[in-house]
């Protein structure tokens, strides 16, 4: 069973009287442990696809199975909890909460993990301990109490990666993760993804940058709402 399976995904946006079809029947399978890059020029529908994969947006038509679960047959509440349990997001703009410290930003996802899952995943370990471990691993142990405004772009993205990993997700979805970084920091971030993937983590990243895509084992090209693998 594939970790992710999309069947005939269509997404139509209404723009005034016009119906704009952004995704035109996407069929896609991603296996556990894969490192996949979804590439395409801007307006190709790759971000829309990423939001559907993250269960943040519903398709107009089609089915999405995550670990065999028919995602869009679930209620809003169940979809929210599915995100908390299975998906870790890394965004281009980092989205670190400005009033929280680095450590607290990494801890936020635990707040939304249902209690029983929290117990099962942390197995007696404190969430704070795990957050510190992740930040240490990403070289941020010196900056646990820093505020996001005191960090460089590369550091911010490392905190965002730690946050994405916090709840032991099945898949990391990264949307242009190096888009706001200089090439050196971007390279470091991509190496982190590569390493995580080597440890077995499934990574799906969306990019328009071929250099970033080159880190992936598999590249899926999207053009005009269709897959050109």
């Amino acid at each position, binding site marked *: 069973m594939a970790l992710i399976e999309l069947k005939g995904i269509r997404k139509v946006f209404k723009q005034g009287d016009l119906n704009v079809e952004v995704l035109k029947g996407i069929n896609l399978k991603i296996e556990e442990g894969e490192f996949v890059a979804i590439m395409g020029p801007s307006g190709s529908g790759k971000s829309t696809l990423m939001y559907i994969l993250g269960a943040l947006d519903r398709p107009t038509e089609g089915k999405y199975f995550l670990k065999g679960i028919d995602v869009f047959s679930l209620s*809003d509440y169940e979809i929210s909890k599915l995100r908390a349990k299975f998906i870790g*997001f890394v965004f281009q703009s980092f989205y670190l909460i400005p*009033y929280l410290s680095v450590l*607290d930003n990494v801890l936020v996802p635990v*707040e939304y993990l249902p209690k029983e899952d929290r117990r099962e995943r942390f197995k007696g370990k404190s969430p704070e301990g795990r957050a510190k471990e992740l930040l240490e691993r990403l070289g941020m142990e010196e900056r646990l109490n820093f505020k996001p405004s005191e960090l460089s772009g590369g550091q911010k993205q490392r905190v965002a990666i730690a946050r994405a990993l916090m709840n032991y997700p099945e898949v990391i979805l990264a949307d242009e993760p190096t888009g706001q970084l200089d090439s050196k920091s971007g390279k470091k971030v991509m190496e982190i993804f590569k390493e995580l993937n080597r440890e077995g983590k499934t990574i799906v990243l969306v990019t328009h940058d071929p250099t970033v895509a080159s880190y992936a084992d598999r590249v899926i090209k999207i053009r005009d709402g269709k897959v050109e693998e």
Partner: protein
Amino acid sequence: MKLFILKELISSLLYSKVRTVFGVLGILFGVVSLVLIVAAIEGSSLQAKKVIEKLGPDSVLIVSGSVKRGPRSSFQNLSLKDVSQIQKLEGIFALTYGIVKPTMISNGENPKFSTVFGVGENWFTSWNYRIELGRGFTEEDFRELRKVAVVGHDVSDFFWPGENPIGKIILVGKTPLKVVGVYEKKGKTPNGHNLDNRLFTPYRVFDKTIEKTYDKVSVIRFRVLNLNDYDRIVEETRKILFRNHKPDEFMIITPVVVKKFLSMLSATLALFLGIASLTALVVGGFVLSSIFYVNVYTREWEVGLRKALGATKKEVTHFFLSEALIVAVISSVAGSLIGTLAIKWTLPKLNIPVVYPIKAFIIAPLFAVAVSLFAVYFPARKAAGFEPVRALRKKA
């Protein structure tokens, strides 16, 4: 995790200090005025009770003055004619009367401004004055027009501190009076008049030596033997007074009248302060609501992020409501403290006894919490309804 959420909420409120301060101020004013209004109402009813207790449920007080102009003991519209006619009524006792003159008194060396009363028999028993030193007036004092005086503690302590004042001579104007008694401390009236700075002398002595009275009196007071006859006796008294005077020359004060007057006063106060505090709270609610509306829109991307991390609509709503709750708690604590100070400073100026009503300190915070939650519920629901994809795009 609950502790972590609390930490998050506090960090958020500290981060947007202006929002928090304005939100807190909005609710705080409401709390302060609510605390104050309950204290004022409780203080007024306490005052009413005290006045009625002092007056006695069986007593009838007649003073010179009118409802329109207010009772004035310095007016002298009543006369001994009224007294002798009222005396004939059946079922009354302890009838007394008095005339008042605020004037200078002295012991021959130091002058003191005091209130001098020329009083009829029964004055001390009728008004519940207890003689602490010496004696009250005797029949002989009245009959033989003895130049005697009974004074309050403020008077005796002023002229003869640490000495026994009995037998000493006190001058009212040029008239020497012999102090025969000192009455027990009575404190102040609910209106703040000092009851211990008074000098009493028999009415006729006052008339002959201090100031000609022309048989006028300022106050008449008596008590009713049987409360069942109370209304009848008041009615008959009124008839006598109407025969002798114009309607605006006197006022009959009964416990019912006092109660009515004071409850009218406290109702006016309650209405005035009630409107003020309600307005303050409603405005506070609007302020909080607008602040949170602006806030949820500026934090739209944060809501999007929290949803991406797994927050449900309910959790987003709860997050903002919890922030409002903290604002309400801070406002309630600060408001109660400021309210306490406001009670201490304001009520004495309004001649209302200072009361710190527990009721107010419970009602006001509950009200503040209710208003805050209601005010923030709508922006919180708005935030909960944000589409995550759209919300995330708000921060590019």
